[in-house]
């Protein structure tokens, strides 16, 4: 009997291999490094991330491991987002964790493993790989959320995220099981082929219920209302750099898998899922923005704002045309810059124990530290979607996509929401520039690493905001088409 060896194509997962090897090596090196010198592990992991960035191919479409993963422009675009997200998080981590007195070296390998999980989610062409990538990401994130183990809030965040994350995984898996049962395969391309070639499959109740359960599971991961309940608590309790990481990377990864599975595997149910996403988008935008209006804690406010931003991205997903989907890609990239940039500033303004994370604590920042206040204003303007920032361009394409597909009301609700959101972003600026300083911000220490992170973020917000064409063109050739 002849044994047919499947074609593996290790090239398709080169960035993941590099990062996993670096992360495992770092776990070993960690034992030898003294506690106050853990920053070296950060430098090594940055080197690993940059190395992985150079192995990301562009313009090729190769499938590997028996159609388990695919390397295409879509996955490359997201891989770049994840690497940027990890790099910026690591840059702001060292100072923070030293200040909080929990400078454990495991932080960096965990961030790298989470990044690997996200990359697999963006590459997955099989429900099994989606699930595995999601779990590699989630298990690392549960630990990261509870990383400051002497801090009760961090404990709470970790435990809450863990319980609700597992719960949502159960729904996602049940959906996958039903879709497997209805079509007899877990490969997303073959699911589509089975459903389109066979009316009995497409009209099978199990197939529809499977789609709904998977949508529930993914909605948990991207923090879409009404499955957003964990977000504010986890974002508030988790260490601030980890909150930055969680709000940008895993959300993008969730969207990557969500987009690929729904657009490629379930085109026969397009009518049903775009109606569902319409409702989710409206609920998510409105809930996020309305509750954010009354938040005093700035981390919690950004958590609700991140829920609202998932809603904007869902507007593009509802339309799922070229403009909408490339809008999502562009938006998730610029959201990474603006959100991590804002969190970088929260990290350095924060005192030990995250004592002063309220909006009132930013009073007079514009007088005492004008450059920092200016940078934070740029990020907040971008989050609010005011030109000439990347946030505006992204929102423009998302809503344009919705209008092209005839979802006029959805676009109108989106724009109204976006207008409401300006209130709570501007409120921070009012405190920064129009209130008298109560403190002298003498504890604010700008290390070169944090400065580099803020610089990358400002460049990432302003350059695509002023000359958006190059990034938009990249997004336009990265659509997840079958």
């Amino acid at each position, binding site marked *: 009997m002849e044994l047919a060896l499947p074609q593996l194509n290790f090239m398709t997962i080169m960035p993941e291999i590099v990062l996993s090897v670096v992360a495992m090596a770092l776990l070993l090196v960690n034992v030898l490094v003294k506690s106050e010198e853990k920053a070296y592990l950060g430098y090594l992991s940055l080197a690993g991330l940059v190395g992985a960035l150079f192995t990301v191919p562009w313009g090729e479409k190769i499938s590997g491991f028996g159609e388990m993963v695919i390397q295409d422009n879509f996955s490359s675009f997201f891989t770049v987002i994840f690497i940027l997200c990890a790099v910026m998080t690591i840059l702001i981590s060292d100072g923070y964790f030293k200040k909080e007195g929990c400078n454990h070296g495991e932080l960096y390998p965990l961030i790298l493993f989470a990044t690997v999980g996200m990359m697999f989610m963006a590459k997955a062409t099989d429900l*099994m790989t989606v699930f595995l990538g999601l*779990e590699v990401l989630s298990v690392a994130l549960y630990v990261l959320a509870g990383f400051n183990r002497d801090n*009760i809030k961090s404990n709470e965040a*970790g*435990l809450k995220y863990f319980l609700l994350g597992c719960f949502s995984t*159960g729904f996602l898996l049940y959906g996958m099981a039903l879709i497997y049962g209805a079509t007899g395969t877990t490969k997303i391309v073959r699911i589509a082929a089975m459903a389109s070639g066979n009316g009995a499959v497409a009209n099978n109740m199990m197939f529809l219920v499977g789609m709904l359960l998977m949508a529930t599971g993914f909605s948990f991961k991207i923090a879409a209302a009404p499955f957003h309940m964990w977000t504010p608590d986890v974002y508030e309790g988790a260490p601030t750099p980890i909150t930055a990481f969680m709000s940008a990377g895993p959300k993008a990864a969730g969207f990557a898998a969500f987009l690929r599975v729904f657009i490629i595997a379930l085109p026969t149910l397009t009518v049903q899922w775009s109606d569902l996403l319409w409702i989710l988008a409206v609920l998510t935008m409105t809930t996020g923005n309305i509750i954010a209006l009354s938040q005093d804690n700035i981390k919690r406010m950004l958590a609700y704002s991140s829920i609202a931003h998932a809603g904007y991205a869902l507007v593009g997903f509802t339309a799922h045309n070229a403009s909408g989907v490339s809008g999502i890609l562009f938006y998730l990239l610029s959201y990474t810059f603006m959100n991590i940039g804002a969190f970088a500033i929260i990290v350095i303004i924060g005192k030990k124990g995250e004592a002063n994370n309220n909006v009132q604590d930013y009073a007079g920042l514009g007088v005492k530290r004008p450059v920092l206040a200016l940078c934070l204003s740029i990020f907040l303007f971008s989050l609010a979607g005011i030109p000439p920032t990347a946030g505006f361009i992204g929102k423009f394409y998302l809503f344009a996509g919705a209008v092209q597909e005839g979802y006029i009301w959805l676009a109108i609700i989106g724009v109204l929401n976006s207008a409401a959101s300006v209130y709570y972003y501007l409120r921070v600026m009012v405190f920064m520039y129009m209130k008298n300083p109560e403190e002298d911000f003498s504890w604010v220490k700008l290390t070169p690493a944090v400065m580099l992170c803020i610089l990358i973020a400002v460049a990432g917000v302003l350059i695509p905001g002023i000359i958006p064409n190059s990034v938009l063109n990249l997004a336009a050739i990265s659509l997840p088409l079958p």
Partner: protein
Amino acid sequence: MLSLHHYLILSGILFSIGAMGVLIRRNAIVIFMCVELMLNAVNLTFIAFSRYLGNIDGQIFVFFVMTVAAAEAAVGLALMIAFYKNRESIDVEDINLMKL
């Protein structure tokens, strides 16, 4: 003779019991056990379909689900121990420092 439907109904019931348990029970460890029950209900679905369709993919999936569940258990129990050290309770009513 047991048919596919029996297995699907059983796994549906198990999944619902698990989901209800997560929503109703107050002890974090019991909640976690309920989540495990949900995952095992999914495993049963996969196995039943795999047997019915004569396709091995479902059984492979089950192996991955079990592995991941084991990893989740390790991480989850560690998180509960860290929480217990600080609060001396693993009742979810006590996970209440952060509110709207």
